[in-house]
């Protein structure tokens, strides 16, 4: 009888811990909500400058690995050719895609309006499309499922709130925001473990994600001294690049990564 009471108490204690942990999570969420920032004076377009450039890979990229979707025929049927991983997407002359180029420093205490328009992350062919997106803090991210199968969308952030939501076929889009700067939040689908994506979250609008031509253009920068960084999902951040932008000036910056 004593043993029964002991296990009843144990079960209750565990259930209580779950409930207690649950309320902790709510508190964390409340804490995560940032105070509404008042945007600084708008940048004067008459003096704003631009930074352009290219990101390149110096050397041969590791051979892309084939993704095996055989275990999920629904996914496999959506492709007529072999699907390769997107860790290194390299164009002509070593142009490197899926790199987030952003201003790391130089904007001082300037604050910026949060864009209302959402950035879309699609699940198409059991792949996240695009592989990398970048948004501003609290800018909506819309996640849609274009596949005839169920996915779960699971960001694994270091500084933001972790969440995990299921999305059956034709389900409503999931709209989420990220409250803190983080470069970058990995996004997984545990139903299909090959599905990976990254969401870079920045405090300001001065960033670009490179396409297959490796090019980027960051416009509307107020004159000043800036530190620029390029970030790649496998290779991490590049070395800092210092750039000084004068009124209406355009400067070019090149980033070169070595493959691992």
């Amino acid at each position: 009888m004593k043993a029964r009471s002991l296990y009843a108490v144990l079960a209750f204690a565990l259930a209580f811990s779950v409930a207690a942990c649950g309320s902790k999570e709510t508190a964390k969420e409340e804490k995560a909500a940032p105070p509404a920032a008042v945007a600084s004076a708008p940048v004067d377009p008459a003096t704003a400058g631009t930074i352009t450039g290219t990101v390149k890979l110096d050397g041969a990229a590791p051979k892309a690995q084939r993704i095996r979707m055989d275990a999920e025929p629904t996914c496999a049927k959506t492709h007529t050719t072999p699907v390769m991983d997107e860790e290194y997407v390299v164009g002509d002359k070593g142009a490197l895609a899926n790199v987030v180029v952003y201003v790391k420093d130089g904007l001082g205490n300037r604050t910026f309006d949060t864009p209302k328009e959402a950035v879309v992350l699609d699940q198409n062919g059991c792949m996240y499309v695009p592989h990398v997106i970048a948004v501003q803090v609290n800018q909506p991210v819309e996640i849609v499922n274009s596949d005839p199968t169920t996915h779960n969308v699971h960001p694994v952030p270091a500084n933001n709130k972790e969440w995990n939501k299921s999305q059956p076929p034709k389900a409503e889009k999931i709209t989420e925001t990220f409250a803190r700067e983080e470069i970058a939040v990995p996004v997984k689908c545990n139903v299909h473990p090959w599905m990976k994506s990254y969401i870079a979250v920045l405090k300001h609008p001065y960033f670009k994600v490179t396409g297959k031509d490796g090019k980027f253009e960051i416009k509307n920068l107020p004159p000043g001294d800036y530190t620029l960084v390029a970030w790649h999902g496998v290779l991490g951040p590049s070395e800092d690049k210092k750039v000084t932008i004068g009124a209406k000036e355009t400067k070019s910056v090149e980033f070169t990564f070595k493959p691992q």
Partner: protein
Amino acid sequence: MTQTANPALHKVAVFTACWTLFLLVAGALVTSNDAGLAVPDWPLSYGSLTPPMVGGIFYEHGHRMVATVTGILTIILAVWISRREPRAWMRRLGWAALGAVIAQGILGGITVKFFLPPWVSIAHAALAQMFFCSVVAIAVFTSPWWQSELTVLRYSAHPPVRERAVAATIAIFIQLLLGAAYRHHAFGMLPHLVGAAIVPFFVLPAASSTRDRLFDSAEGLSRCGTMLKHLLYIQLALGGAALWSRLATQHAPQPMPVMIFFTVAHTAVGALTLAAAVLLVLVSYRVLSPVQPHEAIASQREMAGQESGAM
């Protein structure tokens, strides 16, 4: 010790132990397929009992279903033992196993709700091993062999086979914890590799001491030792294969079948090795009885008295 065994209860206990091993394999498949969060809700899966069994959902929901059956089997065992078993400690063991399986279910829920916190996942893995051992113990204690009139061998406490068996069990359990810590990203692989080098120094002496000629008449002892030793060898080979497969597929975009196979087999044989060590402990305590120092002295005096009387 002699009492009437209940063969049906024993069969259910053996079946529950086998089913629990199947549950451990199902759990290992979840971790190896990175499917622990393929079902975001708990206790239901996608709000139902019958979610689409695709991709990682197959492993995670499958694990939940196998666990549910384990829970039902454990309830049957605990209730049956409490109603029919005359040994009070057996009734307590039955309820303890039920408590463990309930706690295990709650820990599983916490891992889902809180996105696999490493220490909760490790606790889930550790409790799984303890639960498996408790069910194996119930199967042993309900066996006709355990409850039969066995000859208990009196020996001089050397070699200390019982103590060595206990030390081997503890060493294997710690090694399983280190393996779980690696699997759930709390530690790197090094502590587990160091553990793999140390564990044989506990297991092999325990296993080889059962083959001492002193114990020839100790029923089942040497068989347990041999089984433990062979499982250790298989486990070390599987560990090597799991490490190789992990390194060979480290750049693959998803968990590869070869890595999943060897890792899951390594996890399952790890559980069997622990169970074999527990079995050796139980059997050694059942069939051996060391002579205490004061008994040895009394015996020597008695012998000396007989000799002087004879003179």
